[in-house]
Protein backbone atom coordinates (compact mmCIF):
# COMPACT_ATOMS: atom_id res chain seq x y z
CA UNK A 1 0.00 0.00 0.00
CA UNK A 2 1.14 3.50 -0.76
CA UNK A 3 1.86 5.91 2.07
CA UNK A 4 2.72 9.60 2.23
CA UNK A 5 4.68 11.02 5.16
CA UNK A 6 5.08 14.65 6.14
CA UNK A 7 7.42 14.79 9.08
CA UNK A 8 6.99 18.48 9.91
CA UNK A 9 3.65 19.13 11.65
CA UNK A 10 4.33 22.87 11.88
CA UNK A 11 6.75 25.35 10.36
CA UNK A 12 7.14 29.09 10.36
CA UNK A 13 8.96 31.49 8.09
CA UNK A 14 9.50 35.22 7.93
CA UNK A 15 7.79 37.10 5.17
CA UNK A 16 9.96 37.27 2.02
CA UNK A 17 12.11 34.35 3.15
CA UNK A 18 12.26 30.88 1.63
CA UNK A 19 10.91 27.75 3.26
CA UNK A 20 11.01 24.07 2.30
CA UNK A 21 8.35 21.55 3.29
CA UNK A 22 9.30 17.89 3.28
CA UNK A 23 7.40 14.90 1.98
CA UNK A 24 8.36 11.29 1.46
CA UNK A 25 6.28 8.53 0.01
CA UNK A 26 6.36 4.82 -0.37
CA UNK A 27 5.25 2.93 -3.44
CA UNK A 28 6.33 0.00 -5.55
CA UNK A 29 4.86 1.53 -8.67
CA UNK A 30 6.73 3.43 -11.32
CA UNK A 31 3.96 5.52 -12.82
CA UNK A 32 2.34 8.10 -10.57
CA UNK A 33 1.77 11.77 -9.89
CA UNK A 34 2.64 13.81 -6.83
CA UNK A 35 0.90 16.95 -5.68
CA UNK A 36 1.07 19.69 -3.12
CA UNK A 37 -2.26 21.10 -1.99
CA UNK A 38 -2.78 24.23 0.07
CA UNK A 39 -5.62 24.43 2.57
CA UNK A 40 -6.15 27.94 3.99
CA UNK A 41 -8.41 28.57 6.99
CA UNK A 42 -11.41 28.48 4.64
CA UNK A 43 -10.54 24.75 4.31
CA UNK A 44 -10.78 24.75 0.53
CA UNK A 45 -8.26 22.40 -1.12
CA UNK A 46 -6.20 24.34 -3.65
CA UNK A 47 -3.75 22.64 -5.96
CA UNK A 48 -0.34 24.29 -5.71
CA UNK A 49 1.85 22.16 -7.93
CA UNK A 50 1.98 18.79 -9.67
CA UNK A 51 4.83 16.50 -10.65
CA UNK A 52 4.64 13.56 -13.02
CA UNK A 53 6.94 10.76 -11.90
CA UNK A 54 8.20 10.13 -15.43
CA UNK A 55 9.51 13.69 -15.70
CA UNK A 56 12.99 14.30 -14.43
CA UNK A 57 12.60 18.07 -14.47
CA UNK A 58 11.30 19.56 -11.26
CA UNK A 59 7.97 21.33 -11.56
CA UNK A 60 7.76 25.06 -10.87
CA UNK A 61 4.81 27.41 -10.51
CA UNK A 62 5.87 31.00 -9.91
CA UNK A 63 7.20 31.13 -6.32
CA UNK A 64 6.57 27.41 -5.77
CA UNK A 65 8.96 24.69 -6.86
CA UNK A 66 9.58 21.09 -5.97
CA UNK A 67 12.64 18.95 -5.46
CA UNK A 68 11.61 15.54 -6.76
CA UNK A 69 14.02 12.75 -5.95
CA UNK A 70 12.45 9.62 -7.38
CA UNK A 71 15.03 7.14 -6.15
CA UNK A 72 14.80 8.53 -2.64
CA UNK A 73 10.99 8.84 -2.90
CA UNK A 74 11.19 12.41 -1.75
CA UNK A 75 9.08 15.32 -2.91
CA UNK A 76 9.75 18.60 -1.11
CA UNK A 77 8.06 21.94 -1.75
CA UNK A 78 10.03 25.16 -1.77
CA UNK A 79 8.21 28.45 -1.33
CA UNK A 80 10.28 31.47 -2.27
CA UNK A 81 9.57 35.05 -1.22
CA UNK A 82 6.98 33.86 1.30
CA UNK A 83 3.87 35.98 1.59
CA UNK A 84 1.36 36.30 4.42
CA UNK A 85 -1.24 34.69 2.17
CA UNK A 86 0.86 31.53 2.06
CA UNK A 87 -0.16 30.81 5.65
CA UNK A 88 -2.07 27.53 5.42
CA UNK A 89 -1.93 23.78 5.84
CA UNK A 90 0.04 22.12 3.06
CA UNK A 91 -0.70 18.54 2.08
CA UNK A 92 1.48 16.32 -0.01
CA UNK A 93 -0.50 13.78 -2.05
CA UNK A 94 0.16 10.79 -4.26
CA UNK A 95 -1.90 9.19 -6.98
CA UNK A 96 -1.10 5.97 -8.78
CA UNK A 97 -1.66 5.82 -12.51
CA UNK A 98 -2.01 2.06 -12.43
CA UNK A 99 -5.32 1.38 -14.13
CA UNK A 100 -5.57 4.90 -15.49
CA UNK A 101 -5.97 8.30 -13.95
CA UNK A 102 -9.06 7.51 -11.92
CA UNK A 103 -7.13 6.45 -8.84
CA UNK A 104 -7.75 8.12 -5.51
CA UNK A 105 -5.42 10.60 -3.89
CA UNK A 106 -3.45 9.53 -0.83
CA UNK A 107 -2.61 12.42 1.44
CA UNK A 108 0.00 13.07 4.07
CA UNK A 109 -0.97 14.47 7.46
CA UNK A 110 -0.07 17.98 6.45
CA UNK A 111 2.32 20.73 7.52
CA UNK A 112 0.93 23.89 9.07
CA UNK A 113 2.89 26.82 7.68
CA UNK A 114 2.80 30.22 9.34
CA UNK A 115 4.29 33.19 7.56
CA UNK A 116 5.24 35.91 10.02
CA UNK A 117 5.40 39.60 9.15
Amino acid at each position, binding site marked *: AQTVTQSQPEMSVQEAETVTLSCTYDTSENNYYLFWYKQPPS*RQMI*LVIRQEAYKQQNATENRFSVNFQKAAKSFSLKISDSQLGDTAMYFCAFISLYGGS*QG*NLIFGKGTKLSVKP
Partner: protein
Amino acid sequence: EPEVTQTPSHQVTQMGQEVILRCVPISNHLYFYWYRQILGQKVEFLVSFYNNEISEKSEIFDDQFSVERPDGSNFTLKIRSTKLEDSAMYFCASSNNEQFFGPGTRLTVL
Protein backbone atom coordinates in the same frame (compact mmCIF):
# COMPACT_ATOMS: atom_id res chain seq x y z
CA GLU B 1 -13.23 28.84 -15.14
CA PRO B 2 -15.32 25.74 -14.40
CA GLU B 3 -15.41 24.62 -10.79
CA VAL B 4 -16.83 21.96 -8.55
CA THR B 5 -19.62 23.21 -6.28
CA GLN B 6 -20.98 21.69 -3.10
CA THR B 7 -24.10 22.33 -1.05
CA PRO B 8 -24.73 23.01 1.71
CA SER B 9 -21.58 24.65 2.99
CA HIS B 10 -22.47 23.64 6.53
CA GLN B 11 -24.92 20.98 7.69
CA VAL B 12 -25.89 20.40 11.30
CA THR B 13 -27.80 17.24 12.13
CA GLN B 14 -28.82 15.08 15.03
CA MET B 15 -27.19 11.71 15.57
CA GLY B 16 -29.15 9.00 13.80
CA GLN B 17 -30.53 11.30 11.11
CA GLU B 18 -29.92 10.85 7.40
CA VAL B 19 -28.00 13.52 5.51
CA ILE B 20 -27.41 14.04 1.82
CA LEU B 21 -24.44 16.07 0.70
CA ARG B 22 -24.60 17.41 -2.81
CA CYS B 23 -21.94 18.10 -5.39
CA VAL B 24 -22.02 19.41 -8.93
CA PRO B 25 -18.86 18.22 -10.67
CA ILE B 26 -17.25 19.96 -13.63
CA SER B 27 -19.51 19.18 -16.55
CA ASN B 28 -17.22 17.19 -18.84
CA HIS B 29 -15.52 15.21 -16.09
CA LEU B 30 -16.02 11.46 -15.91
CA TYR B 31 -14.60 10.51 -12.52
CA PHE B 32 -16.05 11.60 -9.20
CA TYR B 33 -14.80 11.27 -5.67
CA TRP B 34 -15.72 11.90 -2.08
CA TYR B 35 -13.08 12.57 0.56
CA ARG B 36 -13.43 13.26 4.26
CA GLN B 37 -11.33 15.34 6.62
CA ILE B 38 -11.94 15.09 10.33
CA LEU B 39 -10.91 18.32 12.05
CA GLY B 40 -7.15 18.51 12.47
CA GLN B 41 -6.51 15.32 10.53
CA LYS B 42 -5.55 14.41 7.01
CA VAL B 43 -7.85 14.10 4.05
CA GLU B 44 -9.08 10.52 3.59
CA PHE B 45 -10.50 8.89 0.50
CA LEU B 46 -14.03 7.56 0.78
CA VAL B 47 -15.21 6.49 -2.66
CA SER B 48 -14.72 6.95 -6.37
CA PHE B 49 -17.42 6.73 -9.01
CA TYR B 50 -17.21 6.16 -12.74
CA ASN B 51 -19.68 5.18 -15.41
CA ASN B 52 -22.55 5.23 -12.93
CA GLU B 53 -21.02 2.84 -10.49
CA ILE B 54 -18.58 2.77 -7.62
CA SER B 55 -15.07 2.04 -8.89
CA GLU B 56 -13.30 1.97 -5.55
CA LYS B 57 -14.16 2.52 -1.90
CA SER B 58 -12.22 2.68 1.32
CA GLU B 59 -12.89 0.79 4.52
CA ILE B 60 -14.44 3.98 5.89
CA PHE B 61 -17.20 3.73 3.29
CA ASP B 62 -19.38 1.20 5.07
CA ASP B 63 -23.05 0.35 4.63
CA GLN B 64 -24.09 3.67 6.17
CA PHE B 65 -22.75 5.47 3.11
CA SER B 66 -24.05 5.52 -0.43
CA VAL B 67 -23.41 7.61 -3.53
CA GLU B 68 -25.59 8.44 -6.45
CA ARG B 69 -25.57 10.45 -9.63
CA PRO B 70 -29.31 10.90 -9.93
CA ASP B 71 -29.63 13.24 -12.88
CA GLY B 72 -26.37 13.36 -14.78
CA SER B 73 -25.42 16.58 -13.03
CA ASN B 74 -25.44 16.12 -9.28
CA PHE B 75 -23.28 13.67 -7.39
CA THR B 76 -24.55 12.94 -3.89
CA LEU B 77 -23.21 11.32 -0.76
CA LYS B 78 -25.81 9.94 1.64
CA ILE B 79 -25.12 8.99 5.20
CA ARG B 80 -28.02 6.87 6.35
CA SER B 81 -27.78 7.17 10.13
CA THR B 82 -25.22 9.70 11.21
CA LYS B 83 -22.87 9.12 14.13
CA LEU B 84 -20.92 11.67 16.14
CA GLU B 85 -17.71 10.51 14.47
CA ASP B 86 -19.10 11.42 11.05
CA SER B 87 -18.53 15.07 11.92
CA ALA B 88 -16.00 16.25 9.35
CA MET B 89 -15.45 18.25 6.20
CA TYR B 90 -16.60 16.31 3.15
CA PHE B 91 -14.94 17.17 -0.13
CA CYS B 92 -16.20 16.24 -3.54
CA ALA B 93 -13.75 16.10 -6.45
CA SER B 94 -14.08 15.47 -10.14
CA SER B 95 -11.50 14.55 -12.73
CA ASN B 96 -10.64 13.56 -16.21
CA ASN B 97 -6.97 13.63 -15.32
CA GLU B 98 -6.35 16.11 -12.51
CA GLN B 99 -8.72 16.14 -9.56
CA PHE B 100 -10.47 19.42 -8.84
CA PHE B 101 -11.93 19.82 -5.38
CA GLY B 102 -15.10 21.53 -4.31
CA PRO B 103 -15.15 23.91 -1.35
CA GLY B 104 -16.37 21.21 1.02
CA THR B 105 -19.39 20.68 3.25
CA ARG B 106 -18.83 20.92 6.97
CA LEU B 107 -20.99 18.26 8.63
CA THR B 108 -21.63 18.59 12.34
CA VAL B 109 -23.41 15.72 14.08
CA LEU B 110 -24.83 16.56 17.50
